């Protein structure tokens, strides 16, 4: 009886999750009347704006990941090693982007870094891209910091640092060649979450007027019927792949630990 109820709840719940995915896929395949075809995908992939915006977002994601790693790994390392009493405060700060809605943050950017301000980032294309990158880095901060900090917990930071120092290593060498390889798995999982967030992000890119994938999706959604669903399927597959890779990477790390 209990088992039956449990199955019923689970299956009903799964139906709710699977139906929209099914609906989306079915819709994306039915561009030609009366038969299933990949026509919508063909149209989407042939659209030069798809490639442009997708490559732009992918580039932004990679840049964001590089920036986040450069910012978060040394910071988390330093806090663990030298300033452990500040850890709760730093952790609290890294969670703030979950509290302050993205739309508010980007609103602040627009007002603070416009052309008539002291740091006119929105005045140039490069500046706006940089601002968007920094915005993405704030959005990714809670996930990236948490992942790296968890990774650092599993290694003995102090001993590794002292060992490296006694061999004559400076700080860049310690962080780049001792700490980073040891938390690579954590960094990777943070990187994949960042990729999943950035690739379809809409609010910041739209309000900063950058040609990213998210605003392109929204534009297609407002004007077309079938193509948006093909795009949605593509971006779902990307999200799924990112999360799957995280699982794979963390499973790989378990194997690693067992061997060591």
């Amino acid at each position: 009886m209990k088992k039956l109820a449990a199955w019923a709840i689970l299956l009903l719940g799964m139906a709710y999750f699977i139906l929209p995915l099914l609906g989306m896929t079915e819709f994306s395949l039915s561009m030609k009347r009366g038969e299933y075809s990949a026509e919508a995908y063909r149209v989407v992939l042939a659209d030069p704006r798809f490639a442009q915006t997708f490559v732009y977002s992918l580039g932004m994601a990679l840049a964001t990941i590089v920036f986040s790693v450069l910012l978060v790994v040394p910071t988390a390392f330093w806090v663990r090693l030298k300033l452990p009493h500040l850890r709760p405060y730093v952790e609290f700060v890294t969670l703030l982007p979950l509290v302050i809605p993205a739309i508010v943050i980007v609103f602040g950017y627009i007002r603070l870094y416009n052309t008539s301000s002291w740091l006119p980032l929105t005045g140039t294309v490069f500046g706006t891209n940089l601002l968007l990158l920094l915005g993405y880095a704030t959005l990714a901060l809670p996930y990236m910091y948490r992942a790296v900090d968890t990774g650092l917990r599993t290694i003995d930071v102090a001993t590794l640092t002292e060992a490296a120092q006694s061999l004559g290593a400076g700080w860049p060498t310690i962080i780049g060649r001792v700490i980073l390889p040891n938390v690579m798995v954590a960094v990777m999982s943070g990187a994949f979450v960042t990729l999943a967030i950035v690739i379809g992000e809409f609010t910041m890119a739209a309000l900063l007027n950058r040609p990213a994938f998210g605003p392109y999706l929204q534009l297609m959604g407002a004007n077309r019927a079938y193509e948006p669903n093909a795009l949605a399927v593509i971006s779902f597959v990307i999200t799924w792949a990112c999360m799957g890779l995280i699982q794979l990477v963390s499973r790989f790390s378990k194997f690693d630990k067992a061997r060591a």
Partner: protein
Amino acid sequence: MARQARRTVFRTNRTFYRVTDTPSPASPPLAAPARRRLPLTWLGLLPFALFIALFLIAPTMKIVIGAFQRADGSFTFENVAGLFTKSILGSYWISIRISVASSALGCLIGFLMAAAVVLGGLPKWVRSPLLTFSGVASNFAGVPLAFAFLATLGPLGLVTVFLKTHLGINLRAYGFNILSFWGLTITYLFFQIPLMILIVTPALDGLKREWREAAQSLGASGAQYWRMVALPILFPAILGTFALLFANAFGAVATAIALTGSSLNIVPIMLFAQIRGDVLGNPHLGYAMALGMIVITGLANVIYIWLRMRSERWLK
């Protein structure tokens, strides 16, 4: 009362005065080693602190301060007072209702699903895929999610058409419209339920078998165990997650815009339009709207953090 307040201010002033003043004659021998170490350790946090200050705190403060300023920079409450018009209050109200409905349903359904998997005696292999899927689905928000639901429950959607042609049920005749309160709520559930599952599963794991056995040996029925033991223990965790889901739904912009365009005036959509083109006719009213969002999501998160600390007392 006022005098007392003034006295406290005075006293704090004096303490400040004393703290800054005394080190010069007395403390050089004590302060010297600290002074040599401090600058170095602080430098390590400088890039991070700079990043946070410039791209998280400063923009937010700009909005908060701007909400209390006139165009010429003078202090005013007019903007905040300006929020109390029918249309803006209405948009806050519908936003709050959607957030409450989607987080309440998300909590309930997510709880039931997690309980089914953890306590319902389902085979072990169900659990890991469900958690993985929840991780994916809770990140599948934004524009694509709106498309998925339009293709399912929209006028030509999979479910709508199926119900009409095979079962003779016309959803529209029942007043259902995807571009409405319930449409948006059902769509938000797609990322609300998984988030609840992800958070509540560990809490359910924390329910000790001994508690149930102790209750049973004292003659409690299953319902009594849930009502008097399990739910009171889980309550802070559930309520805390509710607050988190609330903030999550309240700040969601992309899904709402892609789903409804501008046909449903919820706060994020209105703020988006205001930033794009000053539709309210007063730039500083936009600041005040944003401030309202920060206050509401901030409150929800304070409740979440507080209740989480309470729940961790039991679930160790």
